[in-house]
């Protein structure tokens, strides 16, 4: 049978060696009353060619970013993926390896993680990055828990501009320890420093902000850092690393912990997962960092080597007192990001950011010339912006989907006050022709 190499004859030999007559004899400890007395009720097994046909038919029902023009963002972006990434991550030595617990036989993985940590720390302007978390949202939640552990304080000021899906995840994670979230309004698309100052106090563990935020707008990170620090709180910034060829590193603006979604760095969108949770902090906080860390050391001949280190923070050693429960992370996605950042390189990342910005602003300019369509917020934006539409965004989206255009994300489900808005993202991949087609289609849809 497929994937099962042992033939009936070999089974017989093995049973003889063990000294039993059947596999059933090996299952005697499973209580008879709990044995399943029927076959599992699953759809029948398929031969490979039938299976491929079946899955292709399912895949064909989805409007993917190859067969449509994608202006969707909200935490996942259609950035370009250079070809070598897929070829290299498919090498079985990377792809089928386990967590590098035996470092001598895992130097490949350990070195790539070390490179990854270096690149992320550099982009974020932080001292230390970990080996990855699940995704941007859980990374942000873990940052909140870390700030609580560092400061001993129990409250957070969470900017309204943080992705609402992230805010839900943070709420889930802080519920166990009983921590409180206070929301700072964003009437003009970004957090109002005076509103934040009023919410911050002696119990505040951290101010949490995303920049560019969910609406695509740039937050005044430096001002928020000053407010947080004046109250003895930390500043946590969520930032998409792919934007940081162009935008200033959050660490240089006063952040203490920087997290983000690294999917744009060569990780497939894959309907939202697996993604790449990025996590970095100042070095004073290193012993409170969640997740794995790779460090450099030497072997007994003095040669350079790499190991998982500071493991006494982790669950397999510290159990209930660990800094986090995370074990499996997303190492392979971190490898994709490492190869991505090596490929685009120092110059390329700047161009990716500049092109995305130029195209997003071109799109916004054209779209807001349509009667009744305007930018919802005045604050400067990067590659994503919020449009106010004169007609139901859901209906507009459905109409454009029929023309092969994924127009954007309607916000009704995430924020009732923005139910007339559409969130539009434009990456370096979108061409002028695609943008013009989108403008024309939207114009007709709202006319």
């Amino acid at each position: 049978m497929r994937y099962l190499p042992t033939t009936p004859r070999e089974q017989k030999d093995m049973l003889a060696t063990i000294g039993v007559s059947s596999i059933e004899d090996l299952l005697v400890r499973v209580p008879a009353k709990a044995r399943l007395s029927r076959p599992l009720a699953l759809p029948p097994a398929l031969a490979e060619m039938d299976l491929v046909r079946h899955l292709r038919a399912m895949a064909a029902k989805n409007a993917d970013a190859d067969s449509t023009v994608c202006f969707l963002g909200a935490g996942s972006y259609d950035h370009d993926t250079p070809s070598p990434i897929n070829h290299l991550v498919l090498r079985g030595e990377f792809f089928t390896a386990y967590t590098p617990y035996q470092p001598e036989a895992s130097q490949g993985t350990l070195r790539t993680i070390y490179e990854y940590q270096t690149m992320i720390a550099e982009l974020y302007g932080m001292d230390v990055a970990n080996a990855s978390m699940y995704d941007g949202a859980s990374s942000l939640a873990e940052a909140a828990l870390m700030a609580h552990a560092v400061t001993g304080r129990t409250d957070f000021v969470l900017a309204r501009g943080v992705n609402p899906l992230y805010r839900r995840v943070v709420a889930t994670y802080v519920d166990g320890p009983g921590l409180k979230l206070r929301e700072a309004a964003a009437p003009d698309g970004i957090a109002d420093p005076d509103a934040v100052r009023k919410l911050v106090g002696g119990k505040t563990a951290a101010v949490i902000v995303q920049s560019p935020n969910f609406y695509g707008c740039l937050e005044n990170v430096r001002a928020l850092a000053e407010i947080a620090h004046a109250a003895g709180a930390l500043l946590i910034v969520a930032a998409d690393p792919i934007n940081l060829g162009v935008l200033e590193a959050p660490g240089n603006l006063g952040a203490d912990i920087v997290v983000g979604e690294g999917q744009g760095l060569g990780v497939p969108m894959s309907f939202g997962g697996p993604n790449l949770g990025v996590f970095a902090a100042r070095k004073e906080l290193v012993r409170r960092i969640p997740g794995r860390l790779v460090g450099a050391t030497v072997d007994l001949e003095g040669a350079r080597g790499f190991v998982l280190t500071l493991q006494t923070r982790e669950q397999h050693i510290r159990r209930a007192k660990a800094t986090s429960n995370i074990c499996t992370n997303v190492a392979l996605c971190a490898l994709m990001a490492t190869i991505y950042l090596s490929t685009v390189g120092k110059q390329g990342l700047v161009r990716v950011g500049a092109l995305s910005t130029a195209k997003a602003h071109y799109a916004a300019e054209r779209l807001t010339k349509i009667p009744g369509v305007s930018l919802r917020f005045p604050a400067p934006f990067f590659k994503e912006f919020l449009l106010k539409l004169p007609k139901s965004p859901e209906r507009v989206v459905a109409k454009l989907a029929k023309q092969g255009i994924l127009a954007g994300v309607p916000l009704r489900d995430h924020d009732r006050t923005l139910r007339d808005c559409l969130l539009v993202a434009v990456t370096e991949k979108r061409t002028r022709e695609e943008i013009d087609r989108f403008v024309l289609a939207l114009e007709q849809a709202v006319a």
Partner: protein
Amino acid sequence: MERQGTRAYDKLIFEISSPGRIAYSLPDSDVPERPLGELLPREQLRAKPAELPEVSEFDIVRHYSRLSQMNYGVDTHFYPLGSCTMKYNPKINEDMARLAGFGRLHPMTPAASAQGALQLMYDLGLALAEISGMDAVSLQPAAGAQGELSGVLMIRAYHRSRGEKRTKVLIPDSAHGTNPASTALAGYEVIEVKSDAEGAVDLGDLERHLGPDVAAFMITVPNTLGNFEPRVVEIAELCHAKGAQVYMDGANLNAILGITRPGDLGFDVCHFNLHKTFTTPHGGGGPGSGPVGIKAHLEPFLPTPVIVKQDDTYGFDWKRPKSIGKLQAFWGNFGMLVRAYTYIRTMGADGLRRVSENAVLNANYIMKRLEAHYDVAAPGPCMHECVLSARRQKKLGVTAMDVAKRLLDLGFYAPSTYFPMIVEEALMIEPTETESKETLDAFCDAMIQIARETETDPRVIHAAPLTTPVRRLDQTRAAREPALRWSRPAGP
């Protein structure tokens, strides 16, 4: 000593960087480009460019190809890593996950335009529910530990909805570290329950702790000694009688597919590790996928959104006021779900049952072949893995870690060592069903050789590994003087 072969390469990508070298081409802008300073506030623009590598595409391909050769993977080496189920990762799974309709699908695509993806998720949920005997499954948790967190949070929400304030969760001393860590994260006090000499739950100790303040008992089946918990049904009944929920850590599900089901054993919650049982690759540490299955009374508390089917249309149900909330931004590690679905459809019910039968056969075969040479932690028959102890070898100066390092030289990855913690010098061996008898024999021969060397020539063991890219590494130095990122050496 001159380093040769894979040992000769000692570069990081930064160290092969050369200013001005590029690996990537972008088209010229086809829209009017204005200076960034006109579009964005100047103080928000990066003052100093990020120091990323400047290399050619071929530099990259050769560098990462060479680094990959410094790894042992399942594709190249037998990986008897207990509790990790390092089975073959079918290539067809990768092809299917990379179909544009899956791999290039944006998570915010309107449900009407993502029916195939939602159907796959819905059907996978049904299949996992059937395999586990549970009533519903959430595919959202990103890995086993997140599955645990969701499961424990659902238990907490359940007790709260009944107006009960329970503050403790009981966990055996043989448990995976994530169990106590996830439980503590969910706000519970963790109480350790003793195991007996064979790794089974000490029922007396369990009963002693099982008070009205206990929310749940969390247990791995088969347990971490590779044995099926003989009184598991009674344990579940005992817990339920005291109002506690019973959680099964499904890390070892590979032992029981089609043989018994967590739901039938009395469990209220169990999580799956798709990267163990259902062949999604480990990727050097992840991504995984940790769906969580529950009985009907916990359904109101499932993470949002829930994938629903109405007539023949699939969609998201967000209106779940009692939900524990969200675990990650989107819907789950979908790429892993495609792989697991592909695998389940490849195997079918009969195939999955044979998976477990062969996994159990292989583990017992290894245990039998090695029982004269190493101490066995608990008498067999075992399930899908067996735990040996190197305590006999330790008396001669060879530890479990030494055995592990020597195995690397003999062409095998190592078993899990020093886990479970209740076994001295533990060597936890999980061969999985996808390894042939020849491989198992070669591994057993190597283990027997090491046992013999312990008595005749322990120096060769202590010197190991010699064939790997580096020799034993100084862990103490790594922890004492953490060097967690590369920096350019001060130049002349």
